[in-house]
């Protein structure tokens, strides 16, 4: 059972992490980045897309699993145009053209995956340092699919899958370019409660 105090603490840590993501993205793109949403919810799995308010037909998802004393998953989601624009900013002329039928070229996909990597690190570094522990993350897994499938695919890779999930949701916008990025952090609920209990 997840307590209110745990959710409040998760919100505090999530806010710190989201601020780090904003700083990292601003440094990577040299553009103004703002955080539009920073919220924690206990949501039914099926309701996650509605809870976070994204209904685009297809999106790019970058899934990273992290393990250690406080395990969980981070899913970074971008619309296809946002991913294309962000990749081109990051590549600054180093890019190549996508093959027929692909939404991103190999180099564009690699740049977007690196963004997922840096975003995830921003989140879990704050948590690891707070609990004086080490969390080990996997390289990002790339998926391009309909939003419910992206989320389902992410949850299927997580070790614990129940009817509900604790979801920390951040929505970040690179204002000049109209690039939107949604970050879902899904800590494994049981382990998370144990870690927060140990803080008290």
């Amino acid at each position, binding site marked *: 059972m997840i307590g209110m105090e745990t959710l409040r603490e998760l919100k505090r840590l999530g806010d710190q992490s989201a601020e780090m993501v904003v700083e990292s993205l601003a440094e990577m793109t040299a553009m103004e980045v703002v955080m539009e949403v920073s919220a924690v919810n206990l949501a039914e799995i099926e309701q996650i897309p509605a809870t976070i308010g994204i209904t685009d037909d297809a999106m790019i998802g970058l899934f990273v699993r992290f393990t250690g004393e406080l395990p969980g998953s981070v899913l970074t989601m971008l619309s296809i145009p946002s991913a294309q624009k962000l990749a081109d900013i990051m590549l600054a002329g180093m890019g190549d053209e996508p093959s027929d039928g692909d939404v991103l070229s190999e180099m564009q996909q690699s740049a977007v995956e690196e963004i997922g*990597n840096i975003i995830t690190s921003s989140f879990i570094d704050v948590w690891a340092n707070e609990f004086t522990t080490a969390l080990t993350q996997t390289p990002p897994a790339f998926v391009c699919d309909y939003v419910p499938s992206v989320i389902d695919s992410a949850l299927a890779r997580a070790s614990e899958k129940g009817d509900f999930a604790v979801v920390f949701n951040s929505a970040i916008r690179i204002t000049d370019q109209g690039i939107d990025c949604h970050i879902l952090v899904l800590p494994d609920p049981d382990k998370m409660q144990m870690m927060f209990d140990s803080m008290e």
Partner: protein
Amino acid sequence: MLVDDSKFMRALLKKVMASAHNIVGEAENGVEAVDMYEQLSPDIVLMDIVMPHMDGILATSNIVGKHPDAKIIMCTSVGQDEKVKAAIKAGARGYITKPFQGPSVLKEVESLLGQ
């Protein structure tokens, strides 16, 4: 020598380093890095941490175990205090967190090469 599973990061680091240094080899994971170090004996290694098959901390430990003078700088998105300590314990001589600015990477490399 560059060690990173990301094609984009390797291209970016190559661009940063190209003005002053030759890249003698590129590895995509820790296993490749350990083998490549044996073959190339590079002056310096820029090593990612999060990689498939073998992470950068274990690869660093393996390389430094055989070559105590190896000059390895971690170049990673991971900024956790415990991971930094583990990397230093494994034998890393420097630690750069992504996102980075090109001049800061060059400065770190020059500083270590001068030691």
